[in-house]
């Protein structure tokens, strides 16, 4: 193991001198709230254009490599082998609801007792309060939207129109992919545009066979491809390529997947223009009603409870979807009781996510002379094929599948085997191949799906908490039937045996793709942000994380946040130069 250290990703950050050591400097060109995927991109882009940037993060610092404390821990050093203890479950009443609570990286997740929220309806909110946010633990699936997505609201009369189209964001997808490093294959599919890819990872032998059979059976109208992921398959931007350990969410010592720490933060630090301040809870934007601008932010130090004001010419709000709305709701309340951006009546509304956990699985005969070497940190993807031309399935929009094939491991049941040597020896060998897939479906933007501030309930710092009131409706429920049945249909068409359908249920927020709350639009009367992510009511405030989304597509959203953030940052700097901010 000692030899590994020499090929670890060498971080370009010179120790930690970008961390704010005193509070003496109070004025910056730009302030970025939040250091996750969107905030990291904002910091990189703005510092890269010469702005002095203060990057605020409410949680602790996590240093690249050094603080990935479990990244190299072998299974036998993990006391409960990844299983949760009764005590861990009791301490994490929300996280315990899903796989996210895990012995491997409990420190990457929010302390729920410090930061509660109210579930008017069941809502899973899985947060990462630390430098890097959820960029440390994300699934890394990275897909472009298409005009099928950007035009859907307008064409179908749902909510409001997106103020941008694919042609406007495409160059920014290029930019984001080139820097972040997205591996994938070019497919020429209009609903899933190709990008600037590093070589895609490999489908395994069974996935290739199933892909070929699906392609043939459905005349190429359905396609099984390798997932496009922010794992680099070649050395890239000073980072080491993926080593196929499949331990991404513990933090990668090779820097082989995109995170704030591996990618945007070192780039921002390198400019010499970045100051990072962890433990900084932004309580409000300081709104100047005469200038109709934010003059800066108020920060509550999470460790000392002291408050500070920091000034800047522009503010990027990238606190993650629901928390960005929280910051806006708490700002300029003397002008608008509902907060900055509430003049539209849309702030906190139109909350979306992706619903999932419906699909199918089955057993694959044959291929017993084949096995997989290496632990690929992703699976296959089946791009959306439903309602591409409004064919009418009784619901709007569509879904895509994520899945994988593998041989069974020692966890399998071998009912006919006697315990003792026969069982032991059988479990030492791989079992049969199985394949499974689960769909991720679009959730429509419903005005009534909303979050509000609950002033009766306070967090550890005495701040009001969010109350969630969201549910999926008929459109999503109808879609789930196809999500399950189409998966089974494809597996059966591919010759898979013992195909079993499943719908394991979905709770709002569980997709961890929270979107909406401060949507973009053409009109300040119906939207919080304009087409450049500027708050209509304070043009030097930009909201570029999932809050800005007008609809959800069915593809994973993070790459779109990267592109929108970079686009907004370029616009902001141009506007600053023009004297418009």
């Amino acid at each position: 193991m000692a030899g590994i250290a020499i090929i670890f990703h060498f971080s370009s950050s010179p120790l930690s001198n970008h961390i704010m050591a005193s509070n003496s400097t109070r004025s910056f060109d730009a302030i970025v709230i939040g250091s996750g995927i969107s905030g990291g991109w904002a910091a990189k882009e703005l510092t890269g254009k010469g702005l002095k940037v203060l990057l605020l993060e409410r949680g602790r610092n996590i240093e690249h490599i050094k603080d990935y404390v479990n990244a190299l821990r072998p299974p036998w050093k993990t006391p409960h082998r990844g299983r949760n203890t009764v005590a861990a479950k009791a301490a994490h009443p929300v996280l315990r609801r899903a796989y996210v609570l895990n012995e491997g990286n409990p420190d990457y997740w929010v302390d729920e007792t410090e930061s509660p929220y109210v579930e008017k309806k069941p809502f899973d909110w899985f947060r990462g309060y630390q430098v890097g946010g959820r960029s440390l633990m994300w699934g890394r699936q990275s897909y472009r939207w298409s005009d099928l997505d950007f035009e859907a609201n307008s064409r179908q009369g749902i909510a409001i129109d997106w103020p941008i189209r694919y042609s406007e964001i495409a160059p920014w997808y290029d930019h984001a992919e080139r820097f972040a490093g997205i591996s994938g294959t070019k497919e020429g599919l209009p609903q899933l545009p190709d990008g600037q890819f590093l070589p895609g990872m490999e489908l395994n032998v069974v996935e290739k066979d199933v892909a070929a059979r699906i392609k043939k059976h459905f005349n190429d109208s359905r396609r099984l491809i390798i997932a496009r992921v922010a794992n680099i398959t070649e050395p890239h931007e000073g980072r080491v390529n993926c080593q196929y350990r499949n331990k991404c969410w513990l933090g990668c010592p090779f820097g082989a997947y995109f995170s704030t720490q591996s990618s945007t933060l070192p780039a921002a630090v390198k400019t010499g223009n970045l100051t990072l301040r962890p433990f900084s809870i932004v309580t409000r934007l300081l709104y100047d009603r005469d200038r109709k601008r934010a003059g800066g932010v108020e920060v509550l130090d999470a460790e000392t409870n002291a408050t500070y004001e920091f000034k800047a010419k522009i503010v990027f709000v990238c606190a993650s979807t629901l928390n960005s709305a929280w910051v806006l709701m708490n700002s300029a309340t003397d002008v608008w009781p509902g907060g900055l951006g509430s003049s539209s009546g849309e702030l906190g509304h139109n909350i979306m996510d992706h619903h999932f956990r419906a699909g199918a699985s089955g057993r694959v005969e044959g291929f017993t002379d084949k096995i997989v070497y290496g632990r690929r940190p992703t699976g296959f993807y089946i791009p959306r094929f439903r309602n591409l031309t409004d064919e009418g399935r009784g619901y709007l929009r569509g879904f895509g599948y994520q899945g994988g094939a593998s041989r069974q491991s020692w966890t399998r049941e071998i009912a006919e085997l006697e315990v003792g040597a026969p069982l032991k020896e059988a479990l030492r060998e791989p079992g049969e191949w199985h394949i499974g897939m689960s769909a991720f479906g679009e959730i429509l933007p419903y005005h009534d799906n909303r979050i509000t501030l609950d002033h009766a309930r306070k967090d550890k710092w005495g701040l009001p908490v969010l109350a969630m009131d969201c549910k999926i409706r008929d459109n999503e429920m109808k879609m789930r039937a196809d999500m399950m049945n189409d998966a089974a249909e494809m597996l059966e068409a591919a010759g898979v045996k013992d195909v079993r359908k499943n719908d394991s249920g979905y709770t709002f927020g569980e997709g961890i793709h929270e979107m909406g709350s401060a949507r973009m639009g053409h009109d300040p009367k119906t939207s919080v942000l304009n087409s450049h992510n500027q708050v209509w009511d304070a043009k030097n405030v930009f909201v570029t994380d999932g809050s800005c989304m007008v609809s959800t597509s069915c593809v994973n959203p993070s790459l779109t946040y990267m592109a929108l953030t970079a686009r907004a940052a370029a616009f902001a700097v141009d506007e600053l130069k023009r004297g418009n901010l």
Partner: protein
Amino acid sequence: MDMNRRQAVIKMALLMGATVVGPRLLAAEFGSGRGSSARFGTDDIALLDELGDTIIPDTDVPGAKAAGIGEFIAMMVNDCLTPSEQAGFADGLAGFSKDYRKRFGESFVAGKPAERLAFLNELNRRNQHRPRQARRGRRGEEPAVSGREIPNSTYFFRTLKELTILGYFTSEIGCTQALRFVEVPGRYDGNADYRPGEHNWFTEVR
């Protein structure tokens, strides 16, 4: 964002089939809590070691006892099972010891290997795991009382088998001797040759 969800999703899909060792430990369908947490003394650990070693014995590579299975099971029961599950396990363990002594006139620890194995295989046939179904309702909650409570003897045996397999194949012996373990594969080959009898690569990563 979806973190490790792809892995979880695939696991969920694949686990629809029958498994002994799931991502969550076997949760009992007990109606009510009873008793306090199980306390394991050295005798209990020794018994659990022998039970584990009967399920996964020494062959060409060491078995479960060498991997410290008794201590592991005791820790998992104490840390990961609810008080009522612990009580169910402890009661099942006590009943097992009693039944064994009644049948063979001596303790399991002192028993003859062939008799121990035969007895556990009787239990194995009687207490097969049922295919694991996808859970309905809120995840992370204890399963609703179903009215189909399983007897303590069944719960004990299934938990014993699950924890033995889990503990063994994630131990250093299990990973590196029973299976093939590579911390840093460095590459991926989705079409590698496999010959019957070759041991599997360790792939369960959490």
